[in-house]
């Protein structure tokens, strides 16, 4: 499951992380055009980022975050080559994570 594309760039002591996650982020309010039934809610609830084993950021999301969500945040204290791990969990209990290096 390679649902996460991520880049972490260090500049002037600040690492900027940009991630794009593939996920339907269904609100549960859309109707299937063919059957007329509601498409059940299926959205990422939590995204966490760890740097050297320490949590840097936890995002709590609701269904109003757009489909194929984009996320960016910044933090200090990393060096080039440091490992970053980004993970997500959705309301169905599905999850994925990826590791990248600060460049």
């Amino acid at each position: 499951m390679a649902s996460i594309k991520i880049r972490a760039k260090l500049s002037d002591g600040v690492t900027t992380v940009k991630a794009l996650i593939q996920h339907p982020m269904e609100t549960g309010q859309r109707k299937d055009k063919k059957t007329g039934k509601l498409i059940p809610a299926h959205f990422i609830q939590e995204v966490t980022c760890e740097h050297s084993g320490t949590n840097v950021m936890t995002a709590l999301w609701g269904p109003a975050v757009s489909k194929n969500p984009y996320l960016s945040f910044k933090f200090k204290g990393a060096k080039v080559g440091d490992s970053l791990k980004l993970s997500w969990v959705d309301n169905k209990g599905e999850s994925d994570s990826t590791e990248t290096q600060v460049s």
Partner: protein
Amino acid sequence: MTNMKRRTFLKGSVAAGAVGAAMGAGLLTPRIVLAAWPTAAFEAKSVDSALDALEGSHALVGSDKISIRAPDIAENGAVVPVSVTSDIPDIESMSIIAEKNAAPLTASFNLGKGAEGFVSTRIKMGKTSSVIAVVKAGGKLYSTGKEVKVTIGGCGG
């Protein structure tokens, strides 16, 4: 992308795939445990009740140290880019609220050690409304808002 970077990237994605498969097979206990997704906050139908559920209060202090970058007019309400920047010291969390959405709280970001006051994402907006950024720092809630016009609503239906 140079070959080395591509190889590392590919190696990384194969490793991630292997972990995913292992997790699916139940071999690894997920270390990511949903501590407590604030259901009440995300289902709340008003800004005040969402903040009460999320932060225990809806008392907001207007601040000019928060800036919201979002389009004045969003052509597609399903994908509205919103960035929130703040230089208030010791930020604990930053939340994005779409005032007129059926459930106004869209996202909340808890910032860990070393994290800067900046978050960016894309949200769905049902109709023209104010996008409110709430920054929690030093136990207080600071906020600012920006009106975003929506031409085509993004919540489906």
